[in-house]
Every structure is written in C-alpha cells, then in structure tokens.
C-alpha cells in the first residue's frame, strides 16, 4: 500500500493536534496541550477509484518548521495541511509565512489550508474576504471544526486525493 507523509503546520493553538485526534481517534478535548517536537499517527484512507493509501501524519509543534531543527521534519513530505484558527486573524498571517517557507523547502507539493473552529464562526476574525483572497492566490481552502468533526475528514481526503493524483 502506498504510504504518504503529511505534515500538519500552523501557528500554536490553532488545533493541529485536535484535528489529528478527531481524524484518527474520533476524539476531542477542550484542554490545550502544547506539542513539543513531532507526534506521529497513521490512518488508512480510500482514494477515488478504490485504491487505499496509508497517511503518516506528522503533527508538528507550532512554528517549529521555521527553524533549522524543525525543518528536518519536513523531509520527504508528500503533502501538508496548513491549519488556521478562524477566531485569530494573526494565524492566517502566520500561515502565509509558513506556506512560503514550506513550499521553498518542498517545492511544488500538494497542500490544503484548513480554517479550523467553524463551531465558533460568530467569533471569527478571519473574514469571507480573507478566504476569497487566499482562494484567488491559488490556495485550496476548507473550513472545518475539530470539535464537532465538521469538514475534518473532507480536508484529509482532499489532500490524499491531490497526492494520489501526482
């Protein structure tokens, strides 16, 4: 079975670990627990056309990839998820910097931008205009909620399909 290394990147406390927990273990915790280094998980996904793929999920700490030690984690990644917290506009700005950095290291690699915390949409600072701008810049953008599970599976599935299409 084809295995694909996927890195979760994004500012601290945007919900990267929660998205993996929701996707792999169907669990969610409101308590924020910072990640140090990287945590590995796997989940098998069925692709369009019936083929299976093993996703190896690298849940990276905050903005570690911006330093030399952290950038080692990206080696060999087949794709990455750029996670944004809809309630904090600064995490979108961080995502823009990270995307530049990561694409500089990995080259043209599939990615999906996931705007998390859709369950708190009334408190979002990220506006529909912000999202439209990112889409216009060529980003695939999806909204999701690790808390309710809404859209989480779709985000990973979309990325897996994009990797398989390569």
């Amino acid at each position: 079975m084809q295995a694909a290394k996927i890195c979760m990147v994004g500012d601290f406390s945007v919900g990267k670990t929660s998205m993996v927990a929701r996707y792999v273990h169907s669990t969610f915790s409101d308590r924020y627990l910072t990640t140090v280094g990287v945590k590995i998980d796997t989940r098998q996904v069925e692709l369009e056309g019936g083929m299976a793929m093993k996703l190896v999920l690298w849940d990276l700490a905050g903005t570690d990839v911006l330093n030399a030690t952290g950038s080692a984690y990206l080696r060999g990644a087949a794709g990455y998820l750029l996670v944004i917290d809809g309630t904090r506009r600064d995490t979108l700005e961080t995502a823009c910097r990270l995307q530049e950095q990561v694409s500089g290291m990995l080259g043209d690699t599939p990615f999906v931008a996931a705007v998390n915390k859709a369950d708190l949409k009334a408190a979002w600072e990220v506006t529909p205009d912000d999202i439209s701008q990112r889409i216009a810049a060529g980003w695939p953008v999806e909204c999701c909620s690790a808390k309710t599970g809404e859209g989480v599976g779709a985000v990973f599935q979309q990325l897996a399909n994009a990797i398989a299409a390569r």
Partner: protein
Amino acid sequence: MKEHRLPQELQHYLDRQLFHRVHPLCLVADAQERLTGASGDLDFYGLADLVEGERLDNVLPWLSGTAAGLVEPLVLEFLSMETRPGVAHTAHVHLVPLSAGLGIVLLDASDEQAQRRERQQAANELALLHRQREKLLAELEQSQVRLQESHRRLEEAGQLKSLFIGNMSHEFRTPLTSILGYLDLRHQGEMKPAYLDAMEGAARHLLSLVDNLLDQAKLENDELQLNPTETDVREIAGVIRQMFERTARQSGIGFTVEVSPRLPACLLLDGMRLRQILVNLTGNAFKFTQQGEIRVTLDWQDARLNVAVSDTGSGIPVAEQRRIFEPFRQAGQPAIRRHGAGLGLAITLALVERMGGRMQLESTPGKGSRFVFDIDAPESHRIPVTRARTTGRRHLLIVEDDPDIRALLGAYLEDSGYDLAFAADGGMALAALTASKPDLLLMDLHLPDMMGPQVVQAARDEGYEGPVIILSAAAGQAEQAQAAAVGVDAYLAKPIDPAVLLKTLSELG
C-alpha cells in the same frame, strides 16, 4: 597533561549511566530498509519482537519518505511514536546514512520533553492570554468611543428637549397672547374685523402646532396610517394657491402654483396628507424667503405625482441639508429660535416616504432652495358613490354634550336649510331619533353616557338608516375604525371647519 585511556571499570560505569538515562537503541537496515542488525534496549521501545529481514517502515512508519536518499545524518528531535498499541515513546532520532544501508539511533527524550512541554505550555498560554488582553483592550476602547458618542447624543437630545420646551412655550404663548389680548378689547367695545382676522390666524397657528405634535408622536410610534382615496389634486392645488395668496401679496413675493395638463382628474392617494405636505413645504418657503418668488409645480407621469416647491430664499448650507429633516431641528444655529416646533420637515419627509416617494433637496445659500419629491399616485376611474337626496327640507339631529360647541354648530347651520334638533347625550339622542325621525345625524364621539358608535349601533338597531357624521377631537385610527364598523359615513376632526362640514352634509344629503 597526557590523555589517558579510561579504566575499563569507569568506562562501564559511564556506559551504564548513559544507558539508563537515554536507553540508546541502534538499528541497522539495508538499502530496502530491512532490519539487518540491532543493539540496545529493544524492549524499552516495545520493539523486542523485531526480526531480522523485517521491513522497518511497517513498525516505524515515520521512516516512510524521511530516510530515502539521505546523504548526511538527519536528527529528528522529540519524535513521539506509538510502537505498539498503548506503548508510546518520545526519542531523539538520528538517521545515519551508511555505505550499505541506514543506521537508526533512538535516544529516549521523554523526561526532557516533559520539562520542555511545561515551559512551552506556560509560554504559549501566556501568549494567548496576552493576545486576549490586547483584544479586550481594543474592544474596551471601541466601547468607550461608542459610550462617548452616546453621551454626546444624549446631551444633545437633552439640549434639544430643553430648547423644544422653551420653543413650544413661546410658540403657544404668542398666539394665545394675541387671542386673549384682542378678546380683552371687547370690553372697550372694540371688535374690528382685523382683530377677528388676527385671532383666527393665531388659533389656526395653534391648531397646526397641535397637529404637528400629534403627527410626530404617531410617526415615532409607527401609528400613522395613510388613507388613499379618489382625490382631485387640482382642487388641492387650488386650496394651496388660495391659502398663500394673501401672504404673498402682503410680503410682495411672487407666488405661482402650476398644474401640468397631463394630471388626471382623479388620483388614488391620501389627499389630506398630500395637502399637509404642500402646506408644510410652501409655508416653509414663505418663512425663509424675504424677496423674489415661490413656485409650486405639480406634474404626473407613469402613475407618479411629481412635485417641486422652489423659492429664492436664504438657502441652506450643505452641512445642514440632512439635519433639517431631523425632528426638532431647523436651519440656522440650534440656539436661535425660529418659527414653529421644528417638526414640519421631519413629518413631511416621513409622509413622502410612506407614500412611496423620495425627497430631494437642492439648495444654495443666498440663492434659494428647491424641494422635489414624487409619490405613488395611480389614476382612478372610479365614480364616487352618491346617495339619493331627500327631497324637501331636511331634519338634522346634532348630538353634542358641550353646550358651547352645540351652540357653535347651531350657528354654523342655522341658515343652511336644515331643521335642527339637539341632544346632549346618547339617551337623549335615541329618544329624539324615535320622536323626530331625522334625515341626518351629526354626533360627537365622546358622550357622557356612551360612546358615539354605541349610539349609532342602537339607532341602526331601531331602524335608523340615514347618514351619520362623527365629530371628534381625538381623530385616532382606532376611533375611526370603531366608527366605520357601525356604518358611519364621515368622520370629521375638531376643530370644525364650517366649509368642510357643509360640504360633507351636502354630499351625504
């Protein structure tokens, strides 16, 4: 000092210390990442079941992609992995390319990770709190600005209210002074026609003030309803012309009312409110025009009535053009008392908008102003329904509890060709209905023993089929609806305009 090789016992001691602290594990794999050798604490990492020749990426999935094509050592710090279900470890992982494969070194980092997590957690939580604080401070600042703005508006409203009360007191006292002053002159045997004219003017001014205040209250409570009926707009234009002709003559200002020939004979709109709008705009033009001319034009196209009222008066500065439509405001400095309550334009604008229109103002200070509006006004081809007239001299029963108003109505109607009978309450009215069989009934809304519509209902039950006119000082929508429900033919508001009363009586015949 010469370097000595460590004694073997010391070397063993150091190895044991290192082993217990970081549990080193070395795995060697071939080019296909198959296990060829292992040394170290396999059991600690849950890897005791590894067998030679096994593909390592099955057990250590993080090798997938990461190790391929490696040409120099790669260090992955704090890599947390689950090697068996429920067995998790964090290690510093060193991937070392070998001449015929790959070396993998795992050094336990669980304790170090726990310490670092504690520090990182505190730093991240602090950063989140700091951000939250910044956000709250920004919101607080915005709230403060909003509060200051509300405070300013409240203060302004308070000033406007005080100004309004002062203004109202002035506006009521002036015509009252005139009326009472001229009335005093009757004791000196003087009652010239000019005095009566002045008293009439003062009383009409008071009435317009009361009407404006009531209309504003209705607008604020969203109670003002339109009553579109078949309306002759030419007739309204004639009323406006007649109403302001004298003022124009006296002040030497040119005044014209032009009606387009394409205006249909009958339009469906609220004629009373159209007249009110025209009176307000024209009256306003006269207030602020010292010389030159005032023109009112009425045109009709595509079921819309287009009206313009222009003057050559003082004009309105751009900054004030929006504010003059706010209640209790007038052009000029707010502290300067001008004419009226400052409600006319606010009511006019609200009426135009309720009639499906939009008001536009073009004004140049020193040159004049032009108020333009258009309202819904579909043409009507309906012929007004008229009753069959009673032949011969007609009998009219007047029901009114106030003796002065009763006498006034008697005076209005004594030479009008009606035989008059009077009743002071509902009971007397019902008795008179049976006794004198009147052709028409003119009745006050509020009677001491019952309400007008109750009397009408009782009269209808007794077989009275003639027309009924209700007079009321309340003139509210609810009262009118109540009266309509029992078959009242006309509803006239006090004070009574004798011309309107006679016209209504004549129409109901």
